[in-house]
């Protein structure tokens, strides 16, 4: 139903199915309660309160949860809606509205070499995500190269190499402890020359957003890329663990400020975690979710679709 409202074909795509399956547990958990809230006969104050509580339990964050409830409530009153089922649909529309990106992604623009930088805090799943992303774009006809610019964490390069093998793409790496900027420089050169690649995905070391020097390092990596390729990096993705709470907003803000993050990849969405924080992130910072990681296998990766996501969260 929501699908039709947003002009989508009523049949779900393969991606949608994967996203929805991964959200099945979420649905049976906290957000599943949304459905039962709206099964009440009447729209009451308790209903709104319960709704706010449920959103907060999904890590949506207090301010956005309150705003969502308010907006829904206002529209329900203005449009003189009496049936709880219709109110539920309005809530879903509002959620989709918040999650919808303002601009399309720039990865698929025609360009000789597209450079994608992947950043995030420690343990958010950057390396795994890059393996999946390489697989994804290779299957879509791109010639992909990986740059191993996480030269800090023990065995990070080995880990990326294994993913590179699984995805069947080349990887450019230096020794552990090498300068990440130098790795990026070489990776760009190799992509342009020997490998003839059109998509370079760069892995970076995990860093907490409060580590000022490490955040500066990201700026340097960006400068190295920008000097070699016009307007590179073309996308900077922040990898965000779906179980992260309100700190996700601080992460997005800091990484946006110093690394110019253009999108979020939400990982580990196969748990009961909701990733509700992404609502706050797009709402407050205008950084949309672009992809989701839905499991440990290489194919467990999908483009983010707000409609499918909300449907997955709340059930149809």
């Amino acid at each position, binding site marked *: 139903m929501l699908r039709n409202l947003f002009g989508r074909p009523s049949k779900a795509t393969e991606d949608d199915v994967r996203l929805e399956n991964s959200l099945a*547990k979420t649905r049976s*958990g*906290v957000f599943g309660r949304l459905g039962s809230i709206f099964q009440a006969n009447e729209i009451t104050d308790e209903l709104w309160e319960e709704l706010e*509580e449920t959103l*907060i*339990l*999904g*890590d949506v*964050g*207090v301010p956005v949860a309150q705003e969502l409830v308010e907006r829904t409530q206002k529209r329900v009153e203005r449009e003189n809606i009496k049936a709880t089922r219709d109110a539920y649909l309005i809530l879903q529309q509002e959620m989709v509205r918040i999650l919808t990106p303002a601009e399309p992604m720039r990865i698929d623009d025609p360009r000789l070499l597209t450079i994608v930088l992947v950043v995030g*805090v*420690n*343990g*958010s*799943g950057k390396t795994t995500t890059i393996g999946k992303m390489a697989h994804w774009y290779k299957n879509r006809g791109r010639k992909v190269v990986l740059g191993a610019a996480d030269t*800090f*964490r*023990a*065995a*990070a390069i*080995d*880990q990326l*190499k*294994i*993913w590179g093998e699984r995805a069947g793409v080349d990887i450019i790496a230096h020794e*552990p402890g090498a300068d990440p900027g130098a790795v990026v420089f070489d990776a760009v050169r190799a992509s342009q020359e020997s490998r003839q690649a059109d998509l370079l995905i760069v892995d970076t070391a995990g860093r*907490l*957003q*409060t*580590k*000022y*020097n490490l955040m500066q390092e990201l700026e340097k990596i960006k400068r190295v890329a920008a000097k070699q390729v016009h307007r590179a990096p073309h996308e900077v993705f922040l990898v965000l*663990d779906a*179980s*992260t*709470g*309100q*700190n*996700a*907003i*601080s*992460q997005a*803000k800091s990484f946006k400020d110093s690394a110019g993050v253009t999108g979020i990849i939400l990982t*580990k969405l*196969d*748990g*009961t*975690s*909701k990733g*509700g*924080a992404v609502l706050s992130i797009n709402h407050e910072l205008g950084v949309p979710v672009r992809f989701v990681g839905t499991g*440990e296998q290489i194919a467990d990766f999908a483009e983010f679709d707000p409609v499918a996501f909300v449907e997955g969260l709340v059930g149809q």
Partner: protein
Amino acid sequence: MFESLTDKLQGVFDKLARQGKLTEADVNAAMREVRLALLEADVNYKVVKDFVARVRERAVGREVMESLTPAQQVVKIVNEELIELLGKPAPLNLSGQTPHVLMLVGLQGSGKTTMAAKLALRLRKSGQRPILVAADIYRPAAIQQLEILGKQIDVPVHSEGTSVPAATIAKNAVRLAREKAYTTVILDTAGRLQIDDQMMQELEQVRMVTRPSEILLIVDAMTGQEAVHVAEGFNQRVALTGLIMTKIDGDARGGAALSVRQVTGVPIKFLGTGEKLPDIEPFQPDRLAGRILGMGDVLSLIERAQETITEEDAAAMERKLQDGNFDFEDFRDQLRQIKKLGPLTDILGMIPGLNRMTKEIDMNEAEGSLKVTEAIINSMTAQERRNPSILNAGRRRRIAAGSGTTVQDVNQLVKQFRDMQKLMKEMGITGGRKGKQRRGRSMLPRGMSNMFGGMN
């Protein structure tokens, strides 16, 4: 980013300061702030409910009603209750026969492998003979990671590749430890979701064959509402004995600690405080409580300063200050050091009481004024920086043009700088006390705050 609870409560109570007595409605408003503050800190919703009920009970009593400073009283109660709930610090249980087995469990990416190495280093330093066990056979390069870390801290790592079941590896490791007289066996298990039945069975098997004296859940300080389910899930299957919070060096409030502690009832034992292997601390409830409440964190500020500014730099600067030789070169160094500490808002936010101030000052303006100051200094010649007295009108015009400012801006900076120099000389004469105390202060000379423009 976050306002502290004290500020918010102050707002609530300010409104009724004139009325004198607290009413039921006032307490309700205050409790709402407490509730929101805890939710923003990622404390689980249900835990918050119980917690607020307890605080309310005490707040409604005489303690607050008759107090002259109700806001502080409420914060005090919240703080005390938090400390109470977070529980007392507990050491590792290393009683009974050796080898003691420590088993580390948790979600993917929570920091188990790094924590295993940190614990090994700590145990080795305290005279134990630890051995690390690579029982994560799933994540690519997890074994290599542990082996590299083991080498760094000089602790042996037992591994059997990725095709042997984790339980077998763990069992063999314990036997090996017994034969070779290792005293502690640290099991690094694969990250897993608490709802993944097959993987949880693997943990149960490992537990059965190794009988660990500690089963420690590693929890990322950034975890949100989900923390409760994670802790419940692991506790049900493998009966946890302790908790370890990692990545506490970020700016996450760490409310998840309260949730997992409440759900499991087991003590929090350690905190992971950085990327390096010695970065592990025994848990201290008061510090974590302050953090959850968003009260200034002076300790973190000091740590950050220590990280970015070396002892030698500080000592050299102190000498210069005492001798009155502080010139524009030094001033620029100081500006850069402050910049290295991070954005001004962050720095000031960590100082109690200044939380409020940061809202009133336009921080972007202050930050911008820092930049302008640096630009002016950069436009001076080395000679001018070392000897500002040669700055005549012509030089000042050139500097203004070079830094994109006006001559007035340059004049103002030079005047402020002279005032500061004078002040420091006076301090040097009257102060005269030596030793470590002064070293901390010399990091940010008094009077320098005038230079931040918008801040006075």
